[in-house]
C-alpha cells in the first residue's frame, strides 16, 4: 500500500518519507487505540486529559454534582473499567468505595488487571500533597471536615495540580513508556497555561482576599489557602448533621459583627439553610463549583477556577 502510493504519486520520495516517518514515530497504540484511563471524579479526568492529550481516553465514574464520598458504584462501572490500563483516584478516604469496586471488578472480569491499590496502574492523586485540616481521629472533628486523614478537597488548590499531574505522569510513563516524552511535554504545557492563569486569578481576587466569608461546609480549605480567602465559619460544621439553633444564632451574630457579605455553597448542598443564614445577616449566597462540571461554566480544570473566581469577585463587588 505504502509503496504503491509512493510510486504513483508525483513527488514519490518526499511523500513516502513523510508517511514512513510518521508510521515509525507513532507507536502502534496510537494507530489502533488510545490508552484507557478511568478516574473517580471529573476533576481527575480533566487533569488526566491534560497529561494524556489525545493519546488517552479518560472516563470518570462519579457524575458532577454528586457527592463522591457517598457514591454507590453501579454494575456499569465494572464495564467502564474494562480494558482500562490506569485508574486515578482522589485518596485520603474520599473515594473508599473505589477499592471495593476494583476488587470486585478484578475478581469477576478477566480483562481487568493491575488496577488495585499498590498495583502498577493505580494512581492515588493525593500522594505528596500537603494535606490540610490534618487532625487524627482521636483529636476529634470539633469543627471542619470529619476526615481522619485530612481534608480531601485538595484539587481546589490549582498549585496542587502540579503534584497530581506529576503522579499521573509517573504511572502513564511507566505503563506506556513509548509515549513518555509526549506525556511529559503535555504536562509541562498544561502547567505553563495554569501558571499564567494563576497570576490572572490572583489579580482578580485581590479585592476578595482577607474579606470574611462563610461557607456551607468546609470543602474550600485548599482554595482558601491558595487565594488567601478568609472563611470564618461554616453553616453545617459537621457534614450530614443539621446545624443546631445555637450554632446558627452564633454564626449570624458573627456575620453581622464582621460584615460578612458572602455565603459560599456548592450546588449539591442544601440551599435552604444557606439562604436562611444569608438572609438573616444580609449576605448573598454564591454558588461555587466544587468540581469540574458542577456548574455549567466549569467545563474543565482551568474553567473551574475561572468560574469560581468570577462568582466570588462579582459577589463581593455587589
Amino acid at each position, binding site marked *: 500500500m505504502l509503496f504503491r502510493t509512493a510510486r504513483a504519486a508525483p513527488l514519490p520520495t518526499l511523500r513516502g518519507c513523510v508517511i514512513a516517518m510518521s508510521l515509525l514515530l507513532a507507536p502502534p497504540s496510537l494507530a489502533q487505540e488510545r490508552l484507557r484511563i478511568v478516574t473517580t471524579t471529573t476533576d481527575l479526568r480533566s487533569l488526566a486529559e491534560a497529561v494524556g492529550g489525545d493519546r488517552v481516553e479518560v472516563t470518570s465514574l462519579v457524575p458532577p454534582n454528586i457527592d463522591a464520598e457517598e457514591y454507590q458504584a453501579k454494575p456499569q462501572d465494572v464495564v467502564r473499567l474494562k480494558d482500562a490500563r490506569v485508574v486515578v483516584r482522589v485518596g485520603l478516604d474520599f473515594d473508599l468505595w473505589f477499592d471495593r469496586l476494583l476488587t470486585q471488578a478484578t475478581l469477576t472480569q478477566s480483562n481487568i488487571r493491575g488496577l488495585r491499590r499498590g498495583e502498577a496502574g493505580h494512581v492515588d492523586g493525593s500522594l505528596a500533597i500537603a494535606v490540610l485540616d490534618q487532625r487524627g481521629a482521636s483529636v476529634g472533628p470539633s469543627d471542619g471536615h470529619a476526615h481522619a486523614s485530612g481534608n480531601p478537597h485538595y484539587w481546589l488548590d490549582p498549585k496542587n495540580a502540579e503534584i497530581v499531574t506529576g503522579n499521573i505522569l509517573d504511572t502513564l510513563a511507566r505503563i506506556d513508556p513509548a509515549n513518555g516524552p509526549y506525556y511529559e511535554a503535555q504536562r509541562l504545557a498544561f502547567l505553563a497555561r495554569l501558571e499564567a492563569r494563576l497570576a490572572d486569578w490572583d489579580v482578580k481576587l485581590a479585592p476578595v482576599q482577607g474579606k470574611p466569608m462563610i461557607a456551607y461546609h468546609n470543602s474550600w480549605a485548599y482554595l482558601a489557602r491558595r487565594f488567601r*480567602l478568609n472563611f470564618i465559619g461554616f453553616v453545617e460544621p459537621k457534614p450530614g448533621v443539621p446545624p443546631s439553633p445555637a450554632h446558627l444564632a452564633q454564626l449570624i451574630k458573627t456575620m453581622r459583627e464582621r460584615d460578612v457579605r458572602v455565603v459560599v455553597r456548592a450546588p449539591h448542598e442544601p440551599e435552604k439553610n444557606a439562604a436562611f443564614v444569608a438572609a438573616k445577616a444580609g449576605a448573598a449566597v454564591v454558588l461555587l463549583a466544587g468540581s469540574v462540571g458542577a456548574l455549567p461554566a466549569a467545563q474543565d480544570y482551568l474553567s473551574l477556577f475561572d468560574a469560581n473566581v468570577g462568582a466570588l469577585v462579582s459577589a463581593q463587588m455587589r
Partner: protein
Amino acid sequence: MTDALTLLWPPFLVALCLIGIHTYFGIQVLARNVIFVDLALAQIAALGTTVAFMLGHSMQGGATYLYSLAFTLLAAFLLAFTRTWSKRISQEALIGVIYVVAAAAAILLIDRAPQGAEHLKQILTGNILTTGTTELAAIVPLYLAIGALHWLLWSRLAPAKGGTWLWEFMFYATFGVVVTSSVALAGVLLVFSFLIMPAAVGVLFAESLPRQLAIGWTAGSLASAAGLIASYVADLPTGAAMVCTFGAMLALAGLIYPFVQGNAAHAMARAVLVGRWGLALVLAGSAALLMAAPRADQPLLDAVEYVFPSVRGIYLTRSEADIYRDAHAYAERYRREAEELNELETRSRAEGQALDDLLVRRISAFIKSYSEMRRGEEFVKREVRSRARERIRWIAGGGVLLIALAMMPGLLPLCRRLAGSGTREPLAPPLPSRERSDSERSAAERRNPGEGV
C-alpha cells in the same frame, strides 16, 4: 437570649400549625390503623417532584407543585381503593409497598439527573429551624380550608362510618395535600412525630374527638417548645431533638396513664415493683459482667465514673491514681497542642504570612504524632483502670450482686422467713409485700372488673 427568641419563634409557630392539623389527622389515622400512610404519601409527593424536575421544571415552581399534587391524588385513589380490596392483606402492607416502590422509582429517575439527588434528599429531610413567616402564609390558609372541609363533612369522613369509596378518597386526598406541604417544611421524621404522638396521647386520655384534640394539641405544643429549647441550650440538631422530646412526651403520658385512669395506689405499687426488678436486674447484670470480664466495657460503672470521676479514686491505688492523672494531663496537653497547630495553620491561610507547603506538611506531621501520642496516653488510662478493675472484680462484683439481690422484690422477706423458721422464732412473719399487692389487686379487680390493667 433575644437571639434565641428571634431564631426560635418562627419555627415554633410553624410547629403549632403543623400540630394543629396533624393531631386531627393522626387521630383519624390511628382509628383507621394506617400508621405509615404519611410516609407513603410523602414519598409519592417526592416522586412527583422528581418527575417534574426531570421534565425540566424548577424545584420551587408551580408546575412542580402540580406534579407532586397529581401524584399524591393518584396515591390517594389507590389507598381509597385498597381499603376494601382484600380482607386477606392488611392495608398497611400495601402502604408499605407504595412507600418502597415510590422511593425506588425516585432513585431510578434521579440516577439520570445527578444534580437532583440532593434535592430529593432535601424534600424528605426538611429543616423546621429555617422556616418562617413566608411558609406560615402558605400553610395557614391551606390548613384552615382543609380543616373547615373536614368539619363540614365530618358525618361522612369519620373513620367509624366505614364510608363509601368516594369519601375515603376525599380523606386520603386532603391528607396527601397536607403531608406534601408539611414534609417539605419539617421532614419525614418530624411530620410522623407530629402526626402520631400527640394524637396517641389524646386518644389515651379521652374518648370524644374535641377532648382528644385539646389534649393532643396541648401535649404537642409543650413537646415542641421543649424540643426547640433543648435544641438551643444543648446545641443539638433541631428536628432530631424535637422528635426525641415527642417520644419522651409519649413515654411520660404512658407512665402517668395508669395513675390517672384506674387505681392510683395499685399503679404505684406496680411501678415500684417494676422499678425494683429493673434496678435489680441492671445491677446484677453489671456485677456479673464485672466478675466475668473486668477488662470489657462496663456500661454502668463507666457512666457512674463519667458523672462522678471521684468514684475512680475508691478503687485505684495511690500510684495507679498518679499514673492515671498524669496520663490524663498529657493527653489533654497533646490535644491542646494539636488544636493550636491546627488553628495556626487555618489562620495563616488568610492572615499574616502564608505558610509554604513544607511548613504545612510539618504541621500535619506534628498533628498526626500528637494524636498518636494522645492515643497512647488514652491506652495507659484504660490499662490502669482495667487492671484495678481486675483486682476488685470479686469484691465489688459480689457486693453489687448482694445489693441487687436485696432489691429483688420478695427475696428479703423470703430469706427472713427462712431464717426465722431456722431459729424457732414465732411463725408470724409479716405478709410478704408482693403477696399483699397480689391480693390487693384481685380485690381491686373484683371491685371494678376490666379496669385493672
